[in-house]
């Protein structure tokens, strides 16, 4: 189709920024609705994307390619395949919902929404870009608004968290930059076109692959985050305002795994095979370690944050397996974790807005007071702890079954994570919602319509994917088969 849908998805939010900037500081409502509108259009477009996507082939679709900086071999090259389409949809959805969820921001509203839309531009771009230069640009563009969003509207230690996030991620991405350049100069003819680079991948020397893989891995690992690089995450997630935590957990973390699938595997097949085991071990650490650390948390939001560490571990495990099922499991996990954790952060925010505390022990017996909230929260917790029938389960199961033949012991150990996850979520539910009602919270009000509206779509999707996953599976299948084939040959 010649209609440049991807460009529209990327740049309509940008138009939104301009619109917001043109509005007056005082017209709060107008700003809110404008940004809602401009984040809603991409969502609509993303539905078109889903509708028109041809899942039978692994070739890029909705391709747009224009020369941009010939002298650097840079092109404006967008495209989507089975890997990026779900992510684009998720991005559009979560962004829109987060914008709605941010309606309760009353402080420097104009700047807030401007930055937020900029963030959306960046995310969309990363998932659509097929030219490394472009990819890197979008990758970096996100950091800036994220820095501001955390730093201005964040919690008590916001400045620290913000700069930590910025430094960490920049640190990773500069190595990616070196990697990109290295690729550019080793490719013959020199190119930044990911597709061409992939097609040239077999020609790359093993040693070269091993080194450059690490360069890229640093960038992606920090985003995911993989174990030794995870310490930015709790700070950023906890300090960030609700909507931003949603984006952080829902989209940004996925960029790491997306990068691994889009770049690391197909471009460095030999390295991918070489590093499979270490990767799996890291994944194991992520899963178990993250889960265990969750157990020790008193702060609800921090717990959810660490749970992301644990859950992204499954993604890494699936990738390291290098089997179609495992990798599909990874993509499933990316998608469902986006839904579930996004919703969890939204709900945590809902409670925090009312109670102004996130201390798990401070609550108790809330079920009696706010049953609906409890119900929704419980539902998502169950989804997160991998209850069958919800998306979390199917993705974890796929990851396991996909990687079991490869790493029997590791998987057997990783399954422990499932129980620990159950343990800390149930503990949390019990402490907060069950038990005798803590009369301190008499004044607590039930979740509002707007807030409910932000989580219901996520719940629907979560159940939908959990009960009938094949649409998503079919969509990603061809692409992932191709990727895995590229690696394992």
């Amino acid at each position, binding site marked *: 189709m010649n209609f440049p849908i991807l460009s529209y998805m990327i740049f309509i939010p940008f138009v939104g920024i301009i619109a917001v900037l043109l509005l007056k500081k005082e017209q709060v409502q107008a700003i809110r609705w404008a940004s809602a509108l401009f984040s809603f259009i991409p969502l609509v477009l993303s539905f078109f994307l889903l509708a028109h996507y041809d899942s039978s082939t692994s070739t890029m679709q909705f391709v747009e390619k224009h020369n941009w900086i010939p002298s650097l071999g840079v092109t404006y090259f967008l495209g989507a395949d089975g890997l990026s389409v779900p992510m684009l949809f998720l991005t559009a959805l979560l962004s829109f919902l987060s914008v709605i969820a941010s309606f309760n921001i009353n402080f420097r509203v104009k700047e807030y929404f401007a930055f937020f839309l900029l963030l959306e531009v960046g995310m969309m771009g990363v998932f659509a870009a097929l030219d490394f230069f472009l990819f890197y640009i979008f990758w970096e563009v996100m950091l800036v608004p994220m820095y501001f969003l955390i730093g201005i509207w964040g919690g008590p230690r916001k400045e620290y968290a913000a700069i930590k996030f910025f430094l960490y991620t920049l640190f990773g991405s500069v190595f990616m930059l070196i990697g990109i350049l290295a690729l550019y100069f080793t490719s013959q003819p020199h190119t930044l076109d990911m597709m061409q680079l992939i097609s040239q991948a077999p020609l790359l020397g093993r040693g070269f692959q091993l080194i450059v893989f690490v360069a890229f891995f640093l960038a992606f690992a920090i985003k995911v985050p993989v174990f030794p690089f995870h310490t930015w995450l709790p700070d950023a997630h906890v300090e960030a305002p609700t909507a931003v935590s949603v984006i952080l957990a829902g989209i940004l973390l996925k960029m790491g795994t997306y990068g691994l699938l889009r770049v690391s595997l197909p471009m460095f097949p030999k390295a991918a095979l070489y590093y499979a085991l270490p990767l799996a071990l890291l994944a194991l650490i992520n899963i178990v370690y993250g889960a265990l650390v969750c157990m020790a*948390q008193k702060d609800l939001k921090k717990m959810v944050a660490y749970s992301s560490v644990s859950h992204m571990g499954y993604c890494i495990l699936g990738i390291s397996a290098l089997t179609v099922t495992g990798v599909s499991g990874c993509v499933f996990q990316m998608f469902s974790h986006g839904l579930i954790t996004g919703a969890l952060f939204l709900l945590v925010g809902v409670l925090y807005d009312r109670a102004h505390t996130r201390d798990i022990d401070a609550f108790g017996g809330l079920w009696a007071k706010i049953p609906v909230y409890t119900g929704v929260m419980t539902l998502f917790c169950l989804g997160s702890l991998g209850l069958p029938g919800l998306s979390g389960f199917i993705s974890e199961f796929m990851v396991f*079954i996909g990687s079991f033949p490869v790493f029997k012991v590791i998987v057997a150990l990783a399954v422990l994570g499932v129980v620990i996850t159950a343990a800390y979520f*149930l503990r949390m539910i*019990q402490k907060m919602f069950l*038990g005798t009602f803590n009369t301190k919270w008499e004044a607590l009000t039930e979740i509002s319509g707007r807030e409910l509206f932000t989580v219901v779509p996520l719940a629907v999707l979560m159940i939908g994917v959990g009960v009938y996953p*094949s649409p998503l599976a079919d969509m990603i299948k061809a692409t992932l*088969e191709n990727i895995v084939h590229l690696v394992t040959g």
Partner: protein
Amino acid sequence: MLPYSWIIPCFPLLSFALIIFFTIKKPKLSSQISIGAVALSFIFSLIVLVSVLGNPVTSEFKFNWLDLPGFKVDAGMLIDPLTSVMLMVVTIVSMLVQIYSVGYMADDPRFARYFSFLSLFTFSMLGLVLSNSFFEIFIFWELVGLTSYLLIGFWFEKKTASDAGKKAFITTRTGDLAFLVGIFLLTTTVGTVNFQEAFHQVESGAISSGLLTLSAILIFGGAVGKSAQFPLHVWLPDAMEGPTPVSALIHAATMVAAGVYLVARLMSIYALSVPASLVVAIIGAFTAFLAASIALVQNDIKRVLAYSTISQLGYMIMALGLGGYTAGTFHLMTHASFKALLFLGAGSVIHAMHTNDIWEMGGLYVKMRTTAITFILGSLSLAGIFPLSGFWSKDEILLLAWNKNPIFAIVGMAVAFMTAFYMFRLCFIAFYGKARDQHKFDHAHESPKVMTVPLVILAFLSIFAGWVGIPWLSKGYSSFVYHHEVHHLEPNFILMIVATLVALSGIYLAYVIYYKKTISAEGLKNKFAPIHKLLYNKYYFDELYNAIIIRPIFKLADFLFKKFDQGVIDWLVNAAGNFTVFLSWFWELFDTYIVDGAVNGVGYVVRGTGAVIRRVQTGQLQNYAFIIFFGIVLIILLKVF
């Protein structure tokens, strides 16, 4: 009709949805919806049973659910005689329990929610029974676990209740881990998750016996968790914190039987692996004995029943372990009826007395005749007195054990004896003698019809349900539900008589001690004080687990968070700090904000070096000149020479 039997679980699911979303505020209507739904599923399962009886073959209905290379799942149903029987059991018990609950839960604020959960449970249980693949059965397996969690913790204001729920969920899930890994092992080896195909593969020797055994044992782990077998039996007694009808439905009749059902369903795997089936048998026997012995001294009416349930489940597991597909499932069926009856009876007693402690009851026979009679009938059936259902099924198992391996038979006898004893200890203390707590006694009264009627029906069942398995029947249970070929055991009269005598002696002993009181209970207790203590404290399992598993895990978690996530980092910070101290008589280094995180450690170092280097910038023009020439000289020395 069979192809449409997917409708059966749909009714409860529908009612669940209806109640949650619409009638949560209308208790009466909700209960009607729920009961109506289960009634409908009952009717349909009846039809299924009939049609299966018509031609007892295994039939599967499936559609593609997920298709990935290496992971292909066909969702669907597997319907064979066992399934049809289970459907009956589940629907009947669940229906009766729900009716009973209308009375029992009458004045509960969350009446509607209660029924919605029950429907959800019924749905999951039916789904589990109908499953045609490892994947599907695991899904429903977890769902019943969830519902059980919700229902145990139904009175969540009670800490004990919510604790019990959590404990149940996590304990069973621990078993499920093994189950899951087992599934991975098996399915990835045979390359399919579908039962039929998997069995076919296994029988055609697609998997080495070692792996088979391993996976079989791992999968059995799931059963151990669900059916509360040793060593994961600890959750079931605590689960009694839930409403009694729930205990009756989930923790006596159906869910806990799921483990047994699983083993039965996978008979063709266990049949092929001798060691695995041996493990199963031993675990079963051991649990049966263990639980029975604990039950001897418990004072909480529900706990006694709970332990008896565990021991009975052990019985069935043992039977299956010994290859008694028929016997095991048969006992499962009969047990469902009379154990449900007993629980409901206990429920109605509790309803009347507002206590669980049998030592506060007594002489209730006069007050609540129906309950008492039905309860005693149930006990008789459980004790295995001719000609009640219990007799036939238990006899079947003992017979099997005797033929296979007498040791198990002897254990079985012992268990039977203990069973008879503790059941009638219960009966005598609760229903005979004089009232111990006069006040409670005065307020006691017979339960309403809506509760007693189910009791009567169940009593009826627990008398006659077993008769379908009378050995002399030519077309009895054994010729309907069997694995591969019918092996019709020759009834063994001596064994029957011995079994009956054992049971009777148990009853007599109880009679002597607790009715006639010719032997003093206290005396016994004191004589065997240590044993009593041990039994009374359930062999200290909870304490053991708490000490060796739960606390360590929390310790570890705490350690990881406190020490590692912050400790290591602190270490780096300190390292940086020392570095700066070593470097500096410069105060800048210390006025930086408090930090944690390796990044800041590095940051520290960087700033430190910065503070050092900047001191070269003295503002002294001539120092600058000096630096310039110094640099030049250095370069010359390095390069030119």
